[in-house]
């Protein structure tokens, strides 16, 4: 029996979630079969082979990065190979593909899974529900194949074991191009107006930044991290940043993956505007600042010392 791992790639690059999916698959102690489909994907297949027992490569220009085409290719492969589990990311792509496969093949599906527990022939999964405040174990209906999408960041790619599997090239079995759903292309969201509500990473500055001259320091950190600069109300009051950057009940309510609060004491109205962030990190001189009561990580120090250091470290990590 095998575990299928659907490999996500975009514009010639493998997505992180693919490695996390491989990691999840390896933990099931079964044959790990990575599926790489698309056009000109043999390079990618070689990178994936390092961590899989086998890589199935379905080269087909008709796939054209169309999720529906991927679905149909996977459908054929599952029917043919009958894997025990199909794992992919609970990503934008996985959300498009996995449920469709489930209905097409009549296979049970569990999405956004944080833990997979095989129990004999059965599969039990753990999901994090109600805003992560509750964990729930689910049993999947008995079936030959189970479809599971995993939550990003829950299965660390650091744990991957090298397997150096073989690569098998198969026919994609995609008969025609998908007629009713055409991939048009990728677009960068309109740049210009900065929308802090849409950013995944917000580097947010407060009074602790002390001087308008120091704003570029924070700007550079935000850029290095791939995030956007936001701020608390006084910074707008001082005229150091425009109103669109203001986080709080009277400004913008934000829910980034990371909110890095620099020199923000954490007035109630500010906190109310950012408490939905997945992760809050605060840097403040004052260990009693209320911001620390909502932060997961804190550094008690002068932000003007921490910002350049952090910019440097992030640059190093990102290479």
């Amino acid at each position, binding site marked *: 029996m095998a575990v299928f791992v659907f490999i996500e790639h975009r514009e010639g690059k493998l997505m992180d979630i693919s490695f996390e999916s491989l990691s999840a698959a390896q933990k099931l102690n079964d044959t790990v079969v990575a599926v790489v489909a698309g056009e000109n994907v043999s390079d990618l297949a070689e990178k994936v082979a390092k961590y899989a027992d086998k890589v199935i490569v379905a080269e087909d220009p008709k796939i054209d990065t169309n999720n529906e085409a991927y679905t149909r290719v996977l459908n054929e492969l599952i029917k043919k190979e009958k894997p025990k589990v199909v794992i992919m990311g609970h990503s934008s792509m996985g959300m498009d593909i996995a449920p469709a496969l489930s209905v097409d093949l009549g296979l049970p599906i569990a999405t956004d899974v944080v833990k997979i527990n095989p129990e004999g022939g059965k599969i039990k999964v753990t999901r994090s529900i109600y805003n992560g405040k509750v964990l729930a174990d689910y049993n999947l209906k008995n079936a030959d194949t189970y479809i599971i999408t995993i939550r990003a960041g829950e299965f660390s790619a650091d744990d991957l074991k090298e397997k150096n599997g073989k690569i098998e090239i198969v026919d994609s079995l995609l008969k025609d191009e998908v007629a009713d759903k055409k991939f048009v292309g990728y677009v960068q969201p309109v740049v210009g107006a900065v929308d802090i509500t849409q950013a995944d990473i917000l580097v947010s500055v407060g009074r602790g930044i002390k001087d308008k001259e120091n704003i570029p320091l924070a700007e550079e950190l935000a850029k290095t991290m791939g995030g956007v600069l936001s701020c608390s109300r006084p910074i707008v009051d001082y005229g150091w940043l425009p109103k669109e950057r203001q986080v709080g009940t*009277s400004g913008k*309510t934000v829910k980034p993956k990371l909110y890095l609060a620099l020199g923000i004491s954490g007035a*109630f109205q500010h906190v109310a505007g950012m408490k939905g962030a997945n992760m809050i990190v605060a840097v403040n001189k004052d260990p009693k600042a*209320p911001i620390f009561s909502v932060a997961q990580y804190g550094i008690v120090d002068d932000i003007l010392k921490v910002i350049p250091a952090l910019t440097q470290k992030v640059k190093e990590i990102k290479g």
Partner: protein
Amino acid sequence: MMEVEEASFDKLYDVYACMQCGKCTGSCAVSLRTKLNIREMMRIAILGNNDDLKEHEEIWDCTTCGICTVRCPRDLKPSEVIVGLRSVLVEEGEVPSTIRDALESIGNNNNPWGRPKSKRADWMNDLGVEVKNLSAGDEAEYLLYIGCTASYDTRIQKISRAAVRVLTKLGVDFGVLGEEEPCCGSEARMMGESGLFEMLVEDNLNLFNDFGISKIITLSPHAYNAFKTDYKDYKKRLEEEGIEVPDLELDVVHYTQFLAEQIDEGRLTSDMMNEFNKTVVYHDPCYLGKRNNIFEPPRQILSIIPGINLVEFERREDRSLCCEGGGGKMWSEGTGTGERNAVIRARDAGALGAEVIAVACPFCMSTLEDGRSTAGYEESMEVKDIFEILDEVLK
């Protein structure tokens, strides 16, 4: 002609009678720093249509301090016209997202702060004093109405705790409603959501009635004003709509009135206090002062504190400078540019040598705390509620 709920602004507010003297705009707390021009709004109420209104985002700049209504020589109610214009937008769903979230939160969570009902009583954690809970079967003469902001805002929760300690020391027979305390709805009404306010009036009158509450001490002048004035009007409205509401006459006082009464009756005296050797300036909240002419009680309380050096703002009482905290401004930045009134206020206090700005309103606390820091008085000046000062000095 603008219309709301099938009634024209002419019928509701006599807008045709406006003589365009500009007293409203001239008096307006924010007209110098925002696009808001109330006189023009009076004109729009006559000549505009509901679509024109969408172009006037400054409608959300009004703090509803009410001074335009207090001063209007034609005895019109410009501040109510603003609220009415807002309600046109509210009915059409065309409100800034931050206002929308606050209103939705009032509807869903009974507070505008997006906080769960189940955490409303968190301010009482580690209080160290037993407080009666009127929603849990306890009985008391007074309900101490905390209000949403003083229940949830971590800074302002301190006022609530001080209030409980002070009233307990004075032997007042009072209780709170804990998690069951509802939103008074004042801000909902001022943001133009009169339907929601009406619903709250109905619910709250029933709730007060069920828990045997008729005498209320409020922390917030906004709640005071709502219970005192708006609840009466809306109760009438509900009755006209054929909705049954308990025949409950609320006996409401703001806490400064209550404490001033305690002083008059000899139950709160200087002898009971340690010295407070600081220069203090009192900031009049609009909903206590301008809207309700309560100028003296807060000053009376402060004046009996031994050692206090009480100074006065140039602009005080009728001419007090609004802190910009009311009228939904907690949830909307609006079109304002330049220095906030709260910063001007802090600077004026600084010029008076004040070490403490004494406030009697949660919104004033919130805005002035900010103004004080922005004006650079983080180290040298504090903003304290009168309850907090009393809590500090009472032996």
